[in-house]
């Protein structure tokens, strides 16, 4: 069924004991995983709502990724650690722990061939590991500031990493060589009065045809410390490299795009959170402004698109994970 963003509605809610940070569906679409301010990872079975808690990190968990077969979860912690987990285990225990970085690991991604997992964070180095055994493969030094986001090109040849300064580095996976940079400097600002760097490439996404990438985050940060900034996504042509579009908003003056994904139907979906609330924003590929804005009812902090293309998970400050369906509500069952 084709997704209908204008029919978006909250279809399910799951609640935890502490505010949530990030979320991902497993590749088979059976579970949704979230991370929390209480340092745990929570797994909810979508069909039953059954909740299972994964505990091993000594800090917040920044990102999640899965092996291609969907059997293994790899979590990236602010405790320097990558941890391998069995996705579906009744009582999950870590399979493997790797001290991967010095400082927060903010992003983790698995290559499309399933061989490698990449990680990056506050030590400014992107690292490559074997999914099979956790062995270190290669390092990609060169970011001037914290690495915020990662994405493998589906051909496996390249790895993309975005940083605080709004730079997306395109690395050759096999050699570690920096192939080129995408300059998304609109996503970064330095506020001289507050003396802070702010923004960053919070998310990177490919279009389904792989002809474009989209980097997202925030801009117009008039008061970084006071959360006054606006969401923005910047679209680049892959070849030749060219900035082609800035996706903006009219009426979200306090928000950041925590993540963007391109729906198989072609529209761009962004998850925005901030002083104006939490929203799913939908842009046409050539749209300057969203063609639809769906209010989520609470500040959103991350999102993921289900493999069926019809469900979006978002995590929130109010401790809830919400499942939004992109199709009309099922009619109410007639009363018997």
């Amino acid at each position, binding site marked *: 069924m084709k997704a209908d963003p204008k029919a978006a509605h909250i279809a399910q809610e799951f609640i935890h004991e502490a505010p949530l940070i990030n979320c991902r569906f497993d590749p088979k679409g059976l579970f949704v995983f979230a991370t929390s301010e209480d340092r745990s990872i929570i797994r909810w079975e979508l069909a039953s709502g059954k909740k299972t808690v994964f505990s091993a990190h*000594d*800090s917040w968990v920044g990102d999640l990724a899965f092996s291609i077969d969907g059997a293994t979860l790899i979590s990236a912690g*602010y405790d320097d650690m990558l941890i391998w987990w069995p996705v579906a285990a009744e009582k999950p225990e870590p399979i493997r722990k790797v001290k991967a970085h010095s400082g927060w690991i903010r992003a983790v991604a698995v290559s499309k061939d399933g061989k490698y997992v990449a990680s990056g964070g*506050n030590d400014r180095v992107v690292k490559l590991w074997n999914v099979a055994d956790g062995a270190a493969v290669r390092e990609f030094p060169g970011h001037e500031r914290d690495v915020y986001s990662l994405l493998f090109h589906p051909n496996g040849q390249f790895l993309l990493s975005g940083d605080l300064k709004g730079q997306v580095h395109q690395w050759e996976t096999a050699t570690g060589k920096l192939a080129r940079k995408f300059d998304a400097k609109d996503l970064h600002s330095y506020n001289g009065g*507050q003396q802070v760097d702010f923004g960053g490439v919070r998310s990177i996404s490919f279009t389904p045809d792989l002809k474009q990438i989209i980097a997202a985050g925030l801009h117009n940060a008039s008061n970084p410390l*006071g*959360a006054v900034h606006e969401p923005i996504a910047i679209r680049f042509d892959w070849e030749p490299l060219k900035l082609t579009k800035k996706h903006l908003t009219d009426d979200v003056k306090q928000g950041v795009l925590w993540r963007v994904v391109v729906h198989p139907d072609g529209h761009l979906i962004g998850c925005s959170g901030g002083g104006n609330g939490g929203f799913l924003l939908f842009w046409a590929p050539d749209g300057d402004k969203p063609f639809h804005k769906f209010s989520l009812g609470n500040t959103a902090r991350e999102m993921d698109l289900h493999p069926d293309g019809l469900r979006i998970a978002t995590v929130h400050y109010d401790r809830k994970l919400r499942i939004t369906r992109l199709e009309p509500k099922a009619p109410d069952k007639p009363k018997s």
Partner: protein
Amino acid sequence: MEHTMARRQFLGTLAAGTGAVVGGLGWFAQSAAANQLAKDQKRMLVINMHGGLSQLESWDPKPNTNTGGPFRAIPTSVPGVHISELLPYTAKQMHHLALVRGINTKNDDHGKGTYMMLTGYHQRAGIDYPQIGAVVAKSFDANDRSLPGHILITPGGAGGRSADSAYLGPKYSSVVLGNGNPPQNTALPAGLAAATAEEQQTLRRLANDRFLGRRRTAQTDAYVQSFEAAQDLMKQRDVFDLTKEPEKDHDRYGKHDFGRHCLMARRLLEKGITFVQISHSNYDTHNENFNFHFEQMGEFDKPFASLIQDLHERGLLAHTMVVVLSEFGRTPNINQYYGRDHWGKAWSVCLGGAGIARGAVFGKTNANGTEVTENQVDAGNLFHTYLRGLGLNSKATFDVGGRRVPVADPAFGPITELIA
């Protein structure tokens, strides 16, 4: 007895003073102060963490609680004392430092918080109190120094003088080094030769002397003092020249503003400046508190630790009190933007150096940092402690137009457990 002493000392000082500034070194408690000062002059360094440093991301971490946030606690050089993992270099200097973890200033306002932390008084109508820098500069003013006793290094700005000495008068107001640059207007104008400038000053002095022979007043004395102090300052301008510090120290402290300002603070204290205040900005992190504290504390940690180590190795820490303060702390509650808001109810300050019981921790908060559970103190207690640690009588008074004004708020007293 203390008031009697203060009154007598005040009268003696007034007789010799200009009239524009009242009180003086006379209220200094130790009678043998003058000789001792020349040898072991006390100094003070204040680092103002502008905007409200989070105690949870610095001196009083609460990892693995509902308020603790993502950062972990690390051990320090003082057994049993842990601080935030954002301060690994500072942790190694903890045996030179002490922590006050039970501060409750009952205030969440930036301006009021800054005022009370720098004056020791809660702001009230009808009277303005001098900041700690002015009080310390006046207390240790032996009237024989040509360099200013009260220097403020700001992150930006052009410099100048601040109105922070209240009734102690302009002599003790801070000389501001805008972005760490030398004081304003202390270089000869381009094209004016030194010899010509000296001839101009000679002419000025001749005219002054002629005028003073007939119409000398306290005011004219103050003018003369100001001119002569400015001349002395111009002659010693290299005191403020950071390029004279070794390149390896620039590297060690970091080539960012705060690193440069810490190195300048070391230089100024070494040159005998009585009071130096620097600030680090900005900690008012209502939004993305953890990202910003990672960024800011990452910049603060190494130069601060280097400064403490250097002061110790150069024998200066024994004579220099160090205080890292802020206008308040930040809420234990983490808000929807991953931020922390203003919080004066249970927060921390770091002290060290001269007069401070090193390695001490005074005060305690509950498991998630929402309440002080032991040894609660106010800004007033801290102000008394600074003075007592420097060997001053914090219960003495200044005479302001015939009215005795306590140097520190008499509603409070020093934290004796922290005084070495």
